[in-house]
């Protein structure tokens, strides 16, 4: 039914200098559908969304809104048409109440001199009635990330939108919170709103969306009903060839070893975790699961002495460690890859080679402390080749790279010290499907070569796909360990939430 179509994009192109971000793409959105947009980083999803939202002007092509050709020249124009865009980054004012945040744009054009706080709160409560039970009078600062996300959505809804764009809204949400969000999305769709849903997670797309459109290299590839295809088809369309195994093979039985790389006994910081004991065996990849806030990252940071006062016994390859500072941990061969790449993982404005060498500068310097540029570049080149890093020159800043390649720089930095053990916190966050598979393969190779690998992830399919054993953390304690065929979403969620399976189903 063509009259169902609220938005039609035909033959839209957009170039940035020599880069053709969009090459004559088509896209069609119907009222009341949840339409997933899939593609690797750099495929043109964000560019197209920015064109729809009036942030970017297309070089050529046509946008038809509700049967009429339109020119969307600014985000304000997009708002007037009824397009709401919830960006991936939360852009709220943390020190202002939820209600004020939601009605910021209305306040902006209001003529009255005084703020009507009571009125705003009442109106906000009304909006939230269909979303959740957030109190509109609290400050945004005091909300969890997931609730902040809901405030962003509420903000878009108050503009009486007909099209709602959600850019990776679940990136910061737990499984449960994501489910709540999907429920809300479905209700909005049922009321006639068209939703464009951008996500890297196939499971989410297939469980919650009606149709999916795939982009690759700035080109439109296909649009399908999700119930007519398989996740593998979408992935193959995204990468343009067949990826047979998303995850590398696990540790073979014959390769099992009883050698213990890491032995943690009674680790406690008396605040966020206590009495944590576990072991990592040679050749295996150990996954750590847990809800956000369970303390899973804090435990690992505690082992490396990255923050907090920690007591307990840690030994590496049989030798007890006495660490005071993260520096000592690096010296012992134990490194931590941060979950927040841009925030504390890499130096975005600095050259690639300088990033790779940062953990142990002495390795590329003379005994007097003079840095040897050739050694430094050589190290970056060697590790870059090993990780199949795609970059221009090693002197280019890391910010010029895609998310996947930035992550490879961060991993190269870890490998630069020839570590005995690497903790990887969300190793593939913000990384596209191809690079993701590559990183998983690298981790497996490292484990096989005898480097201890511990992976923390909030993406359960990833943990299940790469780990030989999964440690589940609940409220700062080890909730349990699952191994082999027992590594399933149900078992992990069961241990992570502390509910038994029946309660989960209910």
């Amino acid at each position, binding site marked *: 039914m063509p009259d169902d179509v609220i938005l039609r994009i035909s033959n839209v192109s957009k170039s940035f200098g020599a880069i053709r971000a969009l090459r004559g793409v088509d896209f069609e959105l119907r009222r009341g559908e949840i339409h997933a947009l899939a593609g*690797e980083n750099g495929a043109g999803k964000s560019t197209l969304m920015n064109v729809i939202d009036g942030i970017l002007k297309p070089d050529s092509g046509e946008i038809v809104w509700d049967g009429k050709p339109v020119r969307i020249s600014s985000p304000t124009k997009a708002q007037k048409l009824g397009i709401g865009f919830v960006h991936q980054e939360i852009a709220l004012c943390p020190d202002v109440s939820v209600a004020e945040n939601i009605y910021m744009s209305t306040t902006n054009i209001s003529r009255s001199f005084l703020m009507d706080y009571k009125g705003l709160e009442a109106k906000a409560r009304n909006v939230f009635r269909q979303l959740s039970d957030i109190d509109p009078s609290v400050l945004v600062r005091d909300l969890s990330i997931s609730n902040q996300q809901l405030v962003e959505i509420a903000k878009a809804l108050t503009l009486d939108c007909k099209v709602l764009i959600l850019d990776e809204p679940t990136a910061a949400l737990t499984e449960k919170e994501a489910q709540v969000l999907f429920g809300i999305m479905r209700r909005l769709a049922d009321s006639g709103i068209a939703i464009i849903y951008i996500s890297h997670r196939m499971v989410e797309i297939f469980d919650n969306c009606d149709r999916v459109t795939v982009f690759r290299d700035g080109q439109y590839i296909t649009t399908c009903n999700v119930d007519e295809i398989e996740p593998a088809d979408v992935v193959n369309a995204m990468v343009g060839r067949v990826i047979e195994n998303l995850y590398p093979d696990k540790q073979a039985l014959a390769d099992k070893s009883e050698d213990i790389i890491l032995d943690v006994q009674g680790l406690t910081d008396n605040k966020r975790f206590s009495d944590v004991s576990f072991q990592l065996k040679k050749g295996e990849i150990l996954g750590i699961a847990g809800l956000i806030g369970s303390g899973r990252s804090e435990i690992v940071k505690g082992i490396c002495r990255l923050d907090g006062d920690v007591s307990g016994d840690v030994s590496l390859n049989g030798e007890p460690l006495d660490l005071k500072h*993260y520096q000592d941990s690096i010296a012992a061969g134990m490194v931590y890859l941060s979950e927040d790449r841009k925030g504390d993982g890499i130096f975005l404005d600095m050259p690639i080679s300088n990033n790779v060498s*940062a953990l142990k500068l002495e390795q590329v310097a003379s005994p007097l402390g003079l840095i040897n540029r050739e050694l430094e570049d050589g190290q970056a080149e060697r590790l870059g080749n090993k990780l199949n890093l795609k970059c221009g020159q090693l002197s280019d800043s890391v910010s010029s790279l895609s998310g996947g390649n930035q992550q490879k720089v961060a991993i190269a930095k870890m490998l630069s010290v020839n570590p005995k053990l690497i903790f990887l916190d969300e190793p593939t966050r913000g990384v596209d499907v191809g*690079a993701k598979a590559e990183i998983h393969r690298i981790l497996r190779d490292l484990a096989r070569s005898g480097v201890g690998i511990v992976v923390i992830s909030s993406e359960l399919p990833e943990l299940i796909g790469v780990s030989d054993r999964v440690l589940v953390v609940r409220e700062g304690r080890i909730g349990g360990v699952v191994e082999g065929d027992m590594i399933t979403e149900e078992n992990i969620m069961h241990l992570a939430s502390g509910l038994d399976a029946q309660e989960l189903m209910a």
Partner: protein
Amino acid sequence: MEIAAPAPAEPTTSTLHKLLRMRETGLIAIILVMFVIMSFASPYFLTWVNMRAMVMAFAVEGIVVVGMTILLISGGIDLSVGSVTALSMVIAGWLFLQGIDPWVASAIAIAACTAIGAFMGFFVTRVGLHHFIVSLAIMVIARGACLLGTGGRPLGLYTLPPEFKFIGQGTIGPIPLVIIIFLVVVLVFDFMLRRTTVFRKVFYTGSNEKAAAYSGIRTKKVIFLTTTLCSALAGFAGIIYMARFGSAQPTFGLGMELNVIAAAVIGGASLTGGSGTIFGAILGVVLLSVVSSSLALLDVSVYWQDIIRGSILLAAVSVDHYLHKKRG
């Protein structure tokens, strides 16, 4: 098995391209253009006497700029450099008048200024205050101490031995010793900043303090050291000024911090830390003094000079910001 992703947004970067994009190249071009224009506008400009006077005018301040640039790279800032320079002079001068050997007095003064830097570093790294506020307070306190110690009047140091005055007034061949000291400081720190592991950690810390900490770098120690170094160099500059003037002036260096920060920023140092070069900062100093010298030779009112200097700062920072945004 990398997927054919679109090429990174970087056209061919030849060495020439890179050179053209560098801040230093632009500054040198501007300075050269000014030289050409001025040599036509004033016959006096391109003379040895004028050149020497110009370099003498910025050489000592240039030493302070070195310390400031390193501090800016680490993410800090210091508003107290002018007051600390004066305080160094006053402490050394006062001790000398009490009968203490001028070399010993100078060493004590420099040590005192280093201690002031360490004190600020303590407040920034341990108490957790912002550089701006801490150094603002020290700027006022140090100036107050200068006035208190001298009663507000310059201390005439007529009996300074000639070998001490030689630091500020002597020449080696045709070149004033001050300029040689300045060049040595610049070359030494420029080399260390580019090549040593210690100073590389300054860049890491300023570029992303958290990422530096997550690389095992003790960022507080780094910031403590750069803060201390900046004050120590200001103290050192104060001693050279004292030897040059043969007096200690409690009101010396008013507004120096602005000039010094402006030079570093024009030379490419970022106020948010992580970038900057000594060479660029010195070019910033040179540019500012070529402008001053030119305006003086062209008989432009002194009052105009501040307006023009401020405008240059604004223009330089705006151009830089624009280029950064364009590069993405």
